[in-house]
């Protein structure tokens, strides 16, 4: 009873809360980092250095009027934000913050497969949200989203397969342990895959330079144009939770998850004083920072260019990388 119900529920409560709080502070971090990159300060009014902005923003969103457009499909319109947030949260059930309990909720042998399949459900939220708004800009955005997310998903999954080949397991803990055995982060074993997954991750989370489904200056906000209040903030939460998911996947699969750098070098053993989950969170935040940094730097791709990159560049490279990994696996 205790092991099967109470402890997992506690873990879930802690994780979901931690995640949602992280998201609110991630938004603050994004605004701050963007501010510094753009020769300004970012939020400074609420609390010291604007720290309380992270708390005020969600309160504002909750209190706002939640409008349903007159011609919207009411049921789907409400379903869509839920559809996009729930998968983003569910994924965290198999993401390990450390090698043993209580640092993970579920340790399933096909963890990576679970992550891939659950995250792809999130696409439906965007498609349905855009379609059910019964408005033209969201419709265009949801068309873009469906094409974009599906094509980049192919590239990302193909690349992840090559990592699975290297690690020999689909289990997330197993993949990290494989990096310990190899004595090397997979970022050095599979550098191409690492870059591909990160680029694909940018596209799958609708971040610049691939933020076409919500291109504000073209589609006035894209799929969430007609959303307001809490339903809008669910989309918002989902987007940022997805960014954390991608960062976590990259950190786990290519940067040794909770392990310190150079896990086999004894001289660096003092780094183990820092707990594993701190290392892991630090790595996640590094990639979150990278996401924001990229957003501050690049212009946006156009729809046809985006598809060309997905199908003509990323997928061929992913297949090539997979084949090479396969050959290397057989030969070595």
């Amino acid at each position, binding site marked *: 009873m205790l092991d099967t119900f109470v402890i997992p529920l506690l873990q879930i409560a802690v994780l979901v809360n931690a995640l949602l709080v992280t998201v609110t502070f991630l938004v603050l971090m994004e605004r701050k980092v963007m501010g510094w*990159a*753009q*020769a300004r300060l970012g939020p400074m009014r609420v609390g010291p250095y604007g720290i309380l902005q992270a708390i005020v923003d969600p309160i504002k969103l909750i209190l706002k009027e939640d409008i349903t457009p007159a011609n919207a499909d009411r049921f789907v319109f409400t379903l869509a934000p839920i559809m996009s947030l729930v998968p983003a949260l569910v994924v965290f059930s198999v993401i390990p913050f450390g090698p043993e309990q209580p640092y993970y909720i579920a340790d399933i042998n096909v963890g990576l497969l679970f992550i891939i399949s659950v995250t792809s459900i999130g696409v439906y939220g965007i498609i349905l949200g855009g379609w059910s708004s019964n408005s*033209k800009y969201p419709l265009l955005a949801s068309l873009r989203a469906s094409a974009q997310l599906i094509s980049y998903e192919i590239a990302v999954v193909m690349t992840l397969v090559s990592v699975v080949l290297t690690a020999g397991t689909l289990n997330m803990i197993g993949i990290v342990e494989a990096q310990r055995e190899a004595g090397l982060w997979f970022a050095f074993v599979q550098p191409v895959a690492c870059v591909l997954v990160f680029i694909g991750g940018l596209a799958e989370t609708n971040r*610049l*330079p691939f933020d076409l489904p919500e*291109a504000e200056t073209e589609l006035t906000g894209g799929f969430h144009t007609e959303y307001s209040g809490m339903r809008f903030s669910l989309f918002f939460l989902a987007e940022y939770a997805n960014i954390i998911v991608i960062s976590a996947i990259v950190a786990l699969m290519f940067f040794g998850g909770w392990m310190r750098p150079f896990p086999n070098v004894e001289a660096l053993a003092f780094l183990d004083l820092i707990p594993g989950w701190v290392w892991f969170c630090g790595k996640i935040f590094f990639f979150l920072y990278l996401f924001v940094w990229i957003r501050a730097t*690049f212009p946006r791709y*156009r*729809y046809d260019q985006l598809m060309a990159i997905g199908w003509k560049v990323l997928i061929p490279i992913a297949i090539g990388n997979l084949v090479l990994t396969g050959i290397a696996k057989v030969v070595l």
Partner: protein
Amino acid sequence: MMTDATEAPRRIGQAFDTDELVLNMGPQHPSTHGVLRVVLRLDGERVVDADCVIGYIHRGVEKLCENRDWTQIVLLTDRMDYVAAATSNLGYVEAVEKLMQVEVPRRARYIRTILAELQRIASHCLWLGTHAMDIGAMTVLLYSFREREHVLDLFEEYCGARLTYNSMRIGGLPLDIPTGWDKRVSAFCDVMETKLDEYEELLTNNRIWVGRTRDIGVISGEEATALGLCGPPLRGSGVSRDVRKDEPNAAYDEFEFDIPLGTRGDTYDRYLIRLEEFKQSIRIIRQAVEGLPEGPVMGKVPRLIKPPAGETYHAVESPKGEIGFFVVSDGRSTNPYRFRVRPPSFCNLQALSRLCKGHLVADVVALIGTIDIVLGEVDR
């Protein structure tokens, strides 16, 4: 084939039951630079036809001017192209001076040139920032506004206003420059030159930026001339036409500067041209500040401005292109009998539907950005 904005969607294709998607872009849209409304007819994301609907901030400035006396009109010219008020001032006062055949002191002409070129820098900063923002590069906006702020500070120091300057008078200038102002202008020129590299670093060789602007909205020199384009959009197509060189006004004939020309007539060329114009403006300002002559800033003008009966057309090169003022005086009253502006934004906006055709929705915002319109001037 041009279509009316109100026409119903047409059928496209035979195999399926497919209609055009009529998308109303604006007047409330983040990237139409004000209250422009573009009715797009889309085949998927491809633009079949685009129709501009204007007039949302029509204030009747021209008619208003006919009921104000000649000196009051300077104020109204501020409110047309409100991001480049100084060049509108310049065009108008020079038109009246031409009509009255007033001699303007050399010092006043020099300061006018400095003001006009500072204004060009400020206006191009706004163009660069918003154009880049439309294409998704947010940071450039903040950087270019930082420099625009410097220019506005200089204007504020000169005439007290930051946007609508009312900075010129018929026959000269209302006041001489403050002490040390010219030093601060040249100091700004030095700063601006280093900041230009910053913009270029973010955009010029950026693959995404080049991909988004290369071969977008290509227009040939002949077609651009036929459409009546002016300013950077015309020069981007390789047509050498710049009022500052062709019909020198103010003190432009005394300075050395180049007119950058494009070769391909696409959005990227127009971008490069405007960046080069920053440098040429800095060059002009430096020469003007160094050679600033002593003397009065106001010519001999009668107390009551009442130009002799007649009409004149005078054009100057505003940051957007050729802004022309046609004024008619009946010789009796103290207000113009007829007042008409040739607004560069309006003339350039004509090309939008031609440029958009065959491109994607995302390119429409890039094209609105590249022709650099101000709706206050389009509608007047």
